[in-house]
């Protein structure tokens, strides 16, 4: 892995978003470069939810932001409904950009504390939305209703008068008001208590059906990602290691890193087997100087000489299930 290649991209499905060879680099001190995202490709079909999962610093948020061109990627392409976003300019870009919206982990700080909830939700409409006041009001009421916020009190209340879960509903409403085709959800439930987290996850599923949305759902919690996603892509140090249909990926992970993640996830089951032997290792290498070949090799129990010289390419290991590893687990097990 942590590999490249595009064998997993689809041509047959109704693909709405396609990302190819996405690279995002940041300048660092002493002329060094942060290799945040290093050549990833994926696609999302209309109406699908793609989960992006991986540990802190693997480049999930950077990928999400690059889709919105915030900032534009160092290289690579992002194609939304046939339009290549990196080549659009000026008005055309601004227009297209409203088709992708993003919601963030920390709902409270992403809402302007001095404005009322109705104003916050209406903000994006001031530029793009219906100019007719009454029509705008109706739209906002409908959307606030759909996310479970009382539209009447939203007219005078401000963010601090709402809980974290309610603020997340409000930021979802603000994203919906532009009638986007795709919503990028960056850890939208990570800061919430589990009871509230369940409310938001259920609501996202309902809104997706109601408005025909396509979601890219970023999170580090494996169970959350599995619950909401049709397909899951596992990231490690700026690369995609494995991508597949959620149930299949969790039932038979092919990448050693995916397996490690799943085994580390604490399942609320007192009878679950826990491997108590691992107490060391596990520090992720620096993105300033990522390992050659497979980026996971410094932590991989199967790593050999090839893994340090050749970068593994995506290959199919099952129906719609792709992995970038020289020694994928299922192939190893079958001989």
């Amino acid at each position, binding site marked *: 892995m942590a590999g490249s290649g595009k064998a997993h991209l689809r041509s047959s499905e109704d693909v709405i978003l396609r990302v190819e060879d996405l690279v995002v680099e940041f300048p660092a001190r002493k002329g060094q470069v942060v290799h945040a995202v290093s050549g990833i490709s994926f696609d999302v079909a209309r109406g699908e939810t793609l989960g992006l999962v991986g*540990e*802190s610093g693997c480049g999930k948020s950077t990928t999400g932001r690059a889709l919105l061109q915030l900032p534009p990627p160092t290289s690579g392409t992002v194609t939304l409904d046939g339009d290549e976003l990196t080549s659009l300019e000026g008005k055309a870009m601004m227009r297209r950009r409203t088709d992708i919206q993003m919601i963030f982990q920390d709902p409270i700080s992403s809402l302007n504390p001095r404005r009322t909830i109705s104003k916050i939700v209406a903000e994006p409409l001031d530029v793009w939305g219906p100019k007719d006041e009454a029509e705008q009001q109706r739209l906002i009421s409908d959307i606030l209703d759909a996310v479970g916020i009382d539209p009447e009190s939203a007219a005078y209340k401000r963010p601090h008068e709402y*809980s974290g*879960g309610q603020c997340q509903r409000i930021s979802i409403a603000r994203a919906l008001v532009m009638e986007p085709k795709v919503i990028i959800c960056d850890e939208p439930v990570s800061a919430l*208590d*589990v*009871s*509230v*987290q*369940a*409310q938001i*996850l*259920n609501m996202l*599923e309902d809104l997706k059906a109601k408005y025909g949305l396509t979601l890219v759902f970023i999170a*580090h*919690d*494996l*169970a*959350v990602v*599995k*619950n*909401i*996603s*049709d397909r899951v892509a596992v990231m490690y140090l700026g690369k995609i290691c494995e991508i597949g249909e*959620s*149930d299949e990926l*969790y039932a038979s992970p092919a990448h050693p890193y995916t397996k*490690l*993640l*799943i*085994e*580390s*996830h*604490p*399942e*609320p*089951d*007192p*009878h*679950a087997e*826990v491997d*108590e*032997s*691992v*107490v*060391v*290792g*596990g*520090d*992720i290498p620096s993105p300033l100087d990522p390992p050659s070949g497979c980026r996971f090799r410094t932590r991989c129990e199967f790593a050999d000489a090839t893994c340090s010289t050749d970068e593994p390419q995506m290959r199919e290991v099952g129906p719609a299930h792709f992995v970038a590893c020289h020694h994928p687990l299922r192939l190893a097990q079958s001989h």
Partner: protein
Amino acid sequence: MGVEVLSTDAMSGASDALLTVTDLRTHFHVGEHVVKAVDGVSLTVHKGKTLGIVGESGSGKTVLSRSIMGINTAPNIETSGSVTYNGTELVGSSRSTMRKLWGAEMSMVFQDPMTSLNPVVKVGRQVTEHLRSHQGVSKSEARQAAIELLKWVRIPEPEKRLENYPHQMSGGMRQRVCIAIALACGPKLLFADEPTTALDVTVQHQILNLLSQQQRERDMAMVLVTHDLGVVATRTDEIAVMYAGRVVEQASTSTLFDDMRHPYTQSLFWSIPKTSEPKHTRLSAIVGRPPNLAALPPGCSFAARCPYAQDVCREQAPELQPTEDPSHLFACHLPVGSDEGRRALEVNVQLGLPQAKSAALRATVAGGGR
């Protein structure tokens, strides 16, 4: 709970009780209000065993741990009840008594390692600070001990790492240092308050393994505080579930999961997505929010969100009481799995309460009443 405080001790064998908490209350006076952060908690920690304390944000887990340790010092605090450690009463005891206990008998690991480490002191020195103050060892002995401690917590190349400042280490490495500091004086009881919440899942797994391993080797008791039912499921002997400043259910770990009686425990469990379930499994969210701790309702504090609640719940606060199994306690008038509970749920389904409908649906899917 009041006067009829249950002695959890008597029920689970007093002989091996290391720490006994009885009707502990910690209230904060804020302006005209009294925030009842901990409101009548009784529990026992047994020698060499791990007790998990689980609850959502604001349920009082941290205030409880800090009250037991005697490190809640704000002037607006009022603490009552009793905490006995190996027979010594800690509530109201002098600072010097507590100082003798801290580190040597009981110690604590916090969620954010950065807040408990001094950013401008090398970790080698921080690891041995307690040793020096408690046991009066020389400089070279201290260095040797520091290396030994870093080895315990499996830090590679400990000789080099002694010279690091905290910011030169990863989050997981820093938490290992904090654990080393907590273990340095060989405590009999370790409070770990969300020790892995800030860490990545693979690092969390290692740190939990390290804690279990050290706990077994040292025959040390541990209180593992977390909001994550997954973390306590395989790491504890017993679990206490907290809600709004009280323990609402307590049992051995397997009993708690296999035979949960309190509606809150069940609701919490059902609201969590699980990797063992297929994608798009509908989650049972808990409606509403926890009550305001400065204005607790007269009855059960879960009543407003509970699928089972009836008038009795809104009027009378349920006491923590044992089941047929004396080590399994819960505080509920209409417990899960009882006939009264089933009838109450039916009534609420008839009334169209959303939480009741979702619980009833979930119960049929799960099979049986639980």
